[in-house]
């Protein structure tokens, strides 16, 4: 634990995560009691269907690392992000993450559509353990970025979908962590909003010491990441520099990046 003070780091060692599938009514107490009564409990346990979402994953990251996660749907990218965020605890192996974390996994994170915009901002601040003054600053920042004006004191339920996206995005990008875990939803936004949004997002990415990003967008991976993990059915299929892994993943040589895309990674 002594090295805990030496800056943010992530160490994942032999981590597997699996989900028990309580299909149908296997989740019910009745079924389990009957199984126990007829002495079938052990057998039942063995037959339990589990989805192995991550299998024996190991890697480590230090300050300055920008990791991209690629792979098809269901390859385990989001599960890996959730495991890094401490939401899922490993079934085997060891997860060690030092540093403040912001995990942008779900656009609605804690957003309650029945509450007003302002109440949602306050809740987000409280979830992040902010003191009152910081919440006031968060409020100013989010309101001005999302441009909600008078709507801020009305329930989110009546917002247009564009407004909800702007509020969600502004909230997600207002808090600057040392370790930033991003799922790809954050990269999809409404077009008029995209330029400003991109600028703000890039600033947050630049400010983070460690970035872990899950995406399908290869140009994002190539501009933002310094290392790429290719996940396939919960296993690491390849691990290395972005261009190398992407070429393996896509199965053909990469085209040169368009001139407009500048490297964000420092």
């Amino acid at each position, binding site marked *: *634990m002594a090295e*805990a003070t030496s800056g943010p780091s992530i160490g994942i060692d032999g*981590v*597997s995560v699996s989900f*028990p599938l*309580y299909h149908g009514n296997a*989740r*019910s*107490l*009745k079924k*389990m009691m009957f199984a126990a009564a007829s002495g079938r409990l052990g057998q039942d346990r063995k037959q339990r269907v589990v989805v192995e979402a991550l299998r024996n994953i190991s890697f480590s990251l230090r300050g300055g690392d920008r990791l991209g996660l690629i792979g098809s749907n269901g390859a385990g990218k989001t599960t890996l992000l*959730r495991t890094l*965020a*401490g*939401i899922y*605890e*490993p*079934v*085997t*192996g*060891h*997860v*060690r*993450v*030092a*540093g*403040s*974390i*912001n*995990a942008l*996994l*779900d656009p*609605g*994170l*804690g957003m*309650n559509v*029945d*509450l007003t915009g302002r*109440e949602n901002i306050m*809740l987000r601040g*409280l*979830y*992040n*353990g902010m003191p009152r003054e910081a919440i006031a*600053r*968060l409020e*100013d*920042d989010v309101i*001005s*970025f999302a441009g909600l004006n008078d709507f801020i004191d009305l329930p989110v339920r009546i917002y247009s979908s564009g407004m909800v996206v702007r509020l969600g995005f502004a909230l997600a*990008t*207002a*808090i*600057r962590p*040392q370790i930033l875990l991003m799922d790809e939803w954050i990269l999809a936004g409404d077009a008029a909003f995209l330029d*400003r949004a991109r*600028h*703000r997002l890039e600033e*947050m990415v630049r*400010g983070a010491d460690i970035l872990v990003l899950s995406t399908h967008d290869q140009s994002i991976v190539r501009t933002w990441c310094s290392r790429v993990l290719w996940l396939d059915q919960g296993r690491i299929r390849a691990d290395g520099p972005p261009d190398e892994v992407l070429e393996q993943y896509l199965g053909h040589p990469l085209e040169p990046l368009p001139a407009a895309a500048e490297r964000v990674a420092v």
Partner: protein
Amino acid sequence: MDGLSARQMTASAIPAESATLLDLHADMSLSARQGLALADVALGSRLWRLAWTLGWLDIKLRYRGSLLGPFWLTMSTGVMVGALGLLYAGLFHTNLHDYLPYLSLSLVLWAFLGAVVSESCATFTEAEAIIRSVRMPFFLFSLRIVIRNVLVLAHNILVIIVVFALLSTWPGWHMVLALPGILLWLLDALALSLLLGSFCARFRDIQPIVNSVMQIAFFMTPVIWKPEQAGGHFVLLQPNPFFDLLQVVRAPLLGQSPGTVTWLAAALYSVGLCAIAWLFFARARGRVAFWL
């Protein structure tokens, strides 16, 4: 970028929560699990401001847009106490002056007990979206349930005050003796929400069972009737944890003493509940996110 950069500079000044260390092993020993469960309770307690806000918003949302707001709770309890009071005072042939304070107190306290037990089942399932998107201490959600119900109780207490004032009943300084009972209740409520919260996340058919148990308990426990009205039959209904727990708060508020046996029994039930809740929670804590 149209003058936004200045804004964005302030934005970057908002830091995330202070640096944290996450150190999770698989196949932990019992003491390691207990350590994590203890850390969960400590972290959750530190977020009391958030728990308070969540509990308060839950109530506000239920009554948003209504004229009386949460005072609808007070109104409906008041009407219920009045109606049941008239009915049962007639049925039991008792004096309304004696019976109404007893009934109003019993109904309000039971409403709290019943709601805590049944809402405990949804402690974690109702917070699914949050639990799956950010690591939060589970104890936070227990606090939220208890705070929410304490706020409901606070609104209902008005009914008791009005009844006591109208009938000029004054329990006297025995009232203070209800305080340890109330503390015991809060402790039990927190334990119960951890226990039932995780248990019901795993087994989704517990909630209806709990609800029917509570319905039976309402009639089998002296809530609308007094123990002495049941005569010798009441002995057959013992042991009933709800009776002893209800009595340690209700009796002092009626100016009576619950008695040592009742106190001991209530304390014993609570110790048992807390122990079971703790052991189960320490074991289930790391799995709850998978069950949701």
